[in-house]
Structure formats: C-alpha cells, structure tokens
C-alpha cells in the first residue's frame, strides 16, 4: 500500500474517532435527565434512579464513552428506551430504504451533472452553456424539501402518477419499490446535480486550458477526441472530490426528504428519536451515518490513487 493510502487510512480512523466523540458530547450536554424524560414528570424518584442504574447513567462520562465505543466496534448497538428493542433491529429495516434512496439520488445527480456539465463546457459561452448554467443556478437556489412538495403536488396530487408518500416495501417487488423512491430521489438529486454540473463544467474548462491538451491537439486529435481521451479523466479528479463531499449532504438531505414523503427510513427514525429524547437511538444512528460518510470519503481517496498515477506506489 502506498504512503498516500496509509495516510488516508489513518485520517479515516481519526475522523471516525472524532465523529464519535463529537456525537457523544453533543448528546451529553442535553439538558435534563434522560431517565426522567422517559418516565415522565410524575414518576417516583426511586423509579427514575432505577432506570438511571439500568441505563448506566450513574457511571462517569469517560467510562460510558469507551463502553459505547467498545460496543460499536463489536457491533453491539444499544437498546432503545422508547421502543424497547435493540437499536440494531430498528436500523436493519430502515437502512434498506435510506441507503437505496441515497444511492439512487447520487446516481441520478451524477448522471445528469456529468452530461450537463460536459455539454456546457463543450459549448462554452454559447447558448447551450448559458442555458445549462442558468438552469443549474436555479437548481441550487431551490430548497430540496420545497421541490419535494412541488413534485408531490404535481405528480401525486394533480396527475396521480405516484403515491404522495410512504414506501411500499421491497417485498412488493423491485419496480414498485423504486417507484416509491423516485420522487424523493429526484428532489434530493436536483440540488446536488446542479452543484455538481457547475463544478464539472469548470473542471472541464480548466483542464481544457492545460498544456497537454494543446499537445494532444498538435498530435492531430479533434476537439472531441481530445475531450474524451485527455480532458475528461483529468477533469474527473476534482469532480470526484466534490462527489464525496456531496454524499454527506445527500445523507443529511434524506432526513428531511424522508420526512416530506413519509418514508420510514433512518431519517425519520432519527427525527422521532430526537423528539423522544431517545439518546441511544440518536447516538447510534448518527454515528452510523457519520461512519458511512467518512467511509465514502475514504473510498474517494482510494479512487484517486486508481485514477492518478502520481499517487501510486513508486517502484523503488
């Protein structure tokens, strides 16, 4: 493994630890005693104390943090106070909805963004470029949850093509499931795609100014040939970075879009858990999402090394 990847792996681990610390601490400053919150104001103090003991809240913070970490590492998540089931059980079903939703919108946004971005760059300063850029400027300015509402209004309420929310469940078949995810995915993908399209365009334009592109033209390659053979792969390096960073936004976006479409995914779980003060669930789901994001960024770094030979191990 090259030094680059080793360094990245180290960063990956450190970021994960940082994320866990941040998550843990931000929930520790929560005002009020969780045990009291769960049992209600009228519960006798003895019952509250008993629950505190059961939850391990009487132990010092540092101990609880390392306990939690150890549990996470061994894959044993906590038990939800409110649902009274292991968090793992809650996550298991929901991740099968949220993750496909995130992937679907990522695919959509990347597909549209690359096509539009490359098209705009190749028509630089012409009408095609200007209209794509205007469109993307609009896309960036629209809140994703409002777009979600508009999509519901148009496709579900007016046209009746899709249901206005909910998720049919994978057991109803692949097509039906994707159908109930397509509107949420579009509302998530639009903003991300608009940002990515602008970025792709400027990355392609920047690369087109490179000396080696002129060299390629001097070899006799056509404009189009140069674009495909020399520009795109080089331009993809910065674009992939942005894609990695966007994944974080996309996952966060699922929280709000799942809420709009009433999709029973991780996002809704987290919102419900927050309003129920179900710390165990919030903590475990947040760290799961964070780990996913950090992992994706690590994968992006590995992709770098695949694309860019300058980062490959030097033959010594």
């Amino acid at each position: 493994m090259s030094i680059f990847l080793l360094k990245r792996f180290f960063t990956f681990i450190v970021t994960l630890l940082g994320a866990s610390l941040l998550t843990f601490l931000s929930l520790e400053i929560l005002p009020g005693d969780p045990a009291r919150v769960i049992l209600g104001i009228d519960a006798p103090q003895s019952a509250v104390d008993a629950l505190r003991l059961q939850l391990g809240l009487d132990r010092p913070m540092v101990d609880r943090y390392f306990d939690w970490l150890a549990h996470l590492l061994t894959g044993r998540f906590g038990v939800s106070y409110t649902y009274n089931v292991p968090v793992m059980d809650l996550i298991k079903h929901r991740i099968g909805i949220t993750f496909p939703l995130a992937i679907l919108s990522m695919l959509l946004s990347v597909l549209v963004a690359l096509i539009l971005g490359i098209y705009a760059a190749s028509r630089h300063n012409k009408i095609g470029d200007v209209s794509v850029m205007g469109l993307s400027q609009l896309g960036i300015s629209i809140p994703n949850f409002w777009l979600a509402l508009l999509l519901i209004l148009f496709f579900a309420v007016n046209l009746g093509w899709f249901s206005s929310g909910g998720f049919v469940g994978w057991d109803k078949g692949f097509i039906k499931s994707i159908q109930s995810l397509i509107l949420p995915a579009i509302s998530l993908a639009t903003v991300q795609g608009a940002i990515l399209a602008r970025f792709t365009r400027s990355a392609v334009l920047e690369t087109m100014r490179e000396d080696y592109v002129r060299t390629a033209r001097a070899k006799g390659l056509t404009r189009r040939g140069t674009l495909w053979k020399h520009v795109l792969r080089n331009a993809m390096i910065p674009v992939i970075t942005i894609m990695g960073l966007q994944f974080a936004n996309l996952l966060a976006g699922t929280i709000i879009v799942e809420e709009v479409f009433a999709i029973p995914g991780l996002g809704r779980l987290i919102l419900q858990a927050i309003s129920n003060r179900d710390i165990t669930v919030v903590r475990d789901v947040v760290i799961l999402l964070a780990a996913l994001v950090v992992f994706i960024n690590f994968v992006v770094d590995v992709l770098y090394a695949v694309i860019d030979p300058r980062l490959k191990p030097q033959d010594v």
Partner: protein
Amino acid sequence: MLDIKNLNINLNTVYGDATAVRNLSFKLEKGKTLGIVGESGCGKSLTALAVMGLLPENSWSTGEIIFNNKNLLSLNEDKLCKIRGNSIGMIFQEPMTSLNPLHTIGKQIAEPMILHGKVTRSMIKKEVLNLLDMVGIPDPLKRISSFPHELSGGQRQRVMIAMALSCKPEILIADEPTTALDVTIQKQILDLIKDLIDEFGMSMILISHDLGVIANNVQEIIVMYGGVCVEKGYTKKLINNISHPYSQGLFSAIPTLEMQEDSEQRLKTIPGSVPEITEIPKGCTFQGRCEYVSDICVKNSPNSVKISEDHEAYCFNLDKLN
C-alpha cells in the same frame, strides 16, 4: 514547401482588439531550417500556433499559410487534424506540463501513429521502443510504461520530441524547446533535434528568444519585434552584418567569454521593454526603444531594405547605423 504570405494575427482582449502579428511573410524550403527570434510577446509563438491552426479562442488570423499547395487557413478542422502531428509536428516549451499526467509515455508516443494510421497495432510497441531509443531515453523497455512525473525535465522533452517525430512529419516546429531546461541539458536537446532533422531530411522552424541558440542551429533567421519582422536573412550573412538596431541590441545582450577579460566592455541591454500588444505604435514598432529614432519612424512603417543577397532589414536609418 511552406509559404507564409501576409500573415496577420488579431487578438481580442478585454482592452479591445489588437494585432499581435502584422504582415509576416516567409518561406521554408524542404529540408531547410529557419529560426524566429525575438523577446516574449513579439508574436513568434502565435505564428507557430497559427501554422498549426491552434490559435487560442480569442484570436484569428488572416493572410495565407500555403503548405504543399494548400492554404491551411482555408482548410476545415477535419483536414487540419489530418495534417497536425502527421505532416507538421510540434514541440512545446514546457515539457513539465505538456504531457498528460495520467497516461504512460508509451501510450502518448503511440497516439499520433495510431491516429494517422502509420503502424499496425502489432507493430506499435516495437515502433515506440525504437523512438524512445532514438531520442536517447535509457532502458526504453522499462520507460515505456512510466508516467511523465517519473521522468526528469530533459527526458520529458525527449519524449515530446519522440512524439512530434513519430509520424515523420515534413516540418517540425520547436517553440522554445530548451527554455525550461537546465543549461547543461539544453545543448544535448538541441543537438538531438538537429541530428534527427538531418537524419529524416525534415524542415524545421525553431523559435527562441536566444539569438545564440538560433544562430547555432538554423540556416535562416527572422528577427521579430512587436509583431513584425525587422530583419531576416541567411544565418551567416545576418550574423556577420547585423543591421537592424533591435537585432544589434539582441546580439550585444549575449554575454561572451572575452568580456570578462576586458572590464571596460559591459553587457549591453536594450532600454525599455516590449510594448503591450494593445499599445504597439504606428510606424516602426521599435521606435520607442531605438536610439536612432527620427520623425519618419513615427509616421511610416519601414520597407524592406536589401543589405546583401538573401539578407534584408526593415529600418529607415540603416545608413546612420554603419
């Protein structure tokens, strides 16, 4: 073979339109070498790019560039693509950035040959190895799969040369091929280019700001200033009788070994600097920096004055000079 007639190159800048090259004409015969010398911004690189049809987006050219009885300026893009890299090859100034960092050098050298159908797929590797060997890259078998960042500057320029010569073009254009390299490497690269030119019987346009480099490597010289030719001629004749005040300035700015012995003699510099292309004056372009400037230089552009057979200069005051 290459005949450039009244070439004008115009640029569109934020400060307005400007003419970067004005009424440039020259001929390049088969197997001959020609050098264009001048300070940066004098239009020499743009001239080279105009021949390739690769001028930047904000510029356009008028006049004629006749290559093998075809006017390159009136050819469409497809036809130009068949000429570029095939009949006219080009080497650029920056070997560091002129190679694609993501492709192996073998792939990059093979690209023009495949593109112009010069070799069959099965022969390609052998051909690339030959080229690498020819330009003096040690251990070609290993280097063929190297990436540009693994090579030194001099080696990268050798790769560029291999690439430009891979299709055995009729003309090689070398735009400041050694400027970015260490002084010790410069001569090696120039010698290599010269040897290969001779070996293949190619013509060459060598572009440099260094009159010394030009004088040692080409048969005919064009001195450019402010987008126009100020003096041209066969190398020997021109060097022995440098006539235009600008050329004289260029030549006396080259340090020689004898100077150190004679402390009285100092390295001469040309006062002032090259005008911005939007501020090139009417009349003689060199008027602002010329010590012999007179009224007529400001009013009119000087015509060609024949100094001897195959040597001419564009100046009103040649008699005063000598």
